């Protein structure tokens, strides 16, 4: 009896091993191959900067992907291929000029902030490719670099010369249905920011629900109905005393909390209206994906960057 059981058990193990082995072979054979398309417009920066980027980012964010043998073994190869495809879609150092010139600098700041937050290189990639990690000294080099390229943003224009108001015939409406409104001017200012990275000055307003959520520390998640409005001006050059004042009105950004309606973007609806004619940003509703991708960096504060904070105990 015992001998029969053992025999059956051995058979089962053999069959299972056979299935596993066959699956493994099939997975290997069908394993995705990563092509390296030609480098069309490479990113150019100082040598010490490109050296860091090449080592830490290029395996996924370029057409010079250099896979290790273990990256090519299924099932890992599937994950690696998907990551490379997604990474190249986000931005590609080998096709750098596919990013509009005006957006390239912002992208570099985004890259540095992703590294600063420990989100890039992807932790699981860095764990298996320790060489890709960016050291604190290298991060400082990258921070100094982006700071150095963003020194010339100031506007000469004086607010005094740009007071004429353009009339907007209809209420500007974002493609996702969020409408511009004026009432935020009666809301409380929850914070104010100066952005040396892109040369703007901002005031951030919150409606009563948003302010109450801050007061009661109930922002994880923010309650439905919370609305945050950010008014953005292009900064003027510092005056003799070093004061940086707002110049031209640049854009207005609105975040509307509705966990169900905006479930695909972590419960936040985004809208941006640019210029005094308040032109809505985004041709398709998918524009908000790029908003939330960046706002992931503010996950700890419910995906909102500009709220007053203190270190949590």
């Amino acid at each position: 009896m015992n001998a029969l059981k053992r025999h059956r058990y051995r058979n089962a193990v053999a069959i299972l091993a056979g299935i596993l082995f066959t699956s493994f072979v099939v997975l290997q054979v069908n394993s995705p191959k990563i092509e390296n398309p030609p480098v069309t417009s490479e990113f150019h920066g100082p040598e010490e900067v490109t050296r860091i980027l090449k080592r830490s980012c290029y395996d996924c964010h370029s057409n010079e992907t250099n896979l290790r043998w273990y990256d090519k073994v299924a099932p890992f190869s599937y994950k690696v291929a998907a990551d490379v495809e997604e990474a190249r879609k986000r931005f590609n150092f080998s096709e750098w000029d596919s990013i509009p010139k005006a957006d390239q600098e912002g992208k570099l700041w985004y890259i540095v902030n992703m590294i600063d937050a420990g989100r890039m290189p992807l932790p699981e990639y860095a764990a298996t490719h320790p060489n890709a990690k960016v050291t604190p000294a290298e991060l400082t080099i990258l921070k100094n670099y982006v700071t150095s390229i963003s020194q010339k943003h100031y506007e000469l224009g004086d607010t005094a010369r740009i007071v004429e108001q353009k009339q907007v015939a209809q209420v500007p409406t974002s493609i996702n249905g969020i409408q511009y409104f004026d009432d935020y001017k009666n809301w409380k200012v929850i914070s104010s920011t100066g952005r040396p990275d892109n040369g703007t000055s901002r005031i951030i307003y919150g409606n009563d629900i948003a302010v109450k959520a801050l007061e009661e520390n109930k922002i994880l998640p923010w309650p439905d109905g919370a609305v945050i409005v950010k008014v953005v001006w292009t900064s003027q050059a510092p005056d003799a005393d070093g004061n940086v004042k707002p110049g031209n009105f640049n854009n207005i950004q609105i975040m509307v909390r509705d966990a169900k309606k905006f479930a695909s973007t972590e419960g936040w609806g985004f809208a941006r209206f640019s210029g005094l004619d308040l032109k809505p940003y985004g041709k398709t509703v998918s524009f908000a994906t790029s908003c939330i991708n960046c706002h992931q960096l503010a996950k700890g504060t419910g995906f909102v960057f500009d709220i007053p904070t203190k270190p949590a105990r």
Partner: protein
Amino acid sequence: MKSLIALIFATIALDACHDSRKLAPNPETIFDDHGLHVITSFHNDRTRTIAVLYGNDDALANAGKERDAHTPRVGTPGEVFKLVTWDLKQNPLWFGSNINGNVQSVETVTVSAGESGPAIDYAKDDSSQKKDENAVLSNAERISFIFAQRASVFP
């Protein structure tokens, strides 16, 4: 096995890094404007401060008017200004952005009708501990500074 251990260590290390980004709201820094309007804002890297100038209807209307840059404004009876100044700190969530920290001071300028022209009252509520001797300006200079601010352009 080695990579598993590496992964565990990486996760622990990452958690440690993220501690500095664990933040709680700090609503004490939000200024209660009691119905005043935002006139303008500015920040200063030298003094590490960021400020918002508020005003009542009269103050906002006058700060938005065209004016001769060479004639200093003396104030119109009825105007109330409040200049709120906060510490400037790096936004913990975004390298490249500065955000307000704690409130340093609130300066209030009130203009009323006096016997011979506008009477101007200046008061400063200073909650900051640090006093920069060199930066102390006379009240008259602060009043002129506040009067000189132009309204920001809103849509």
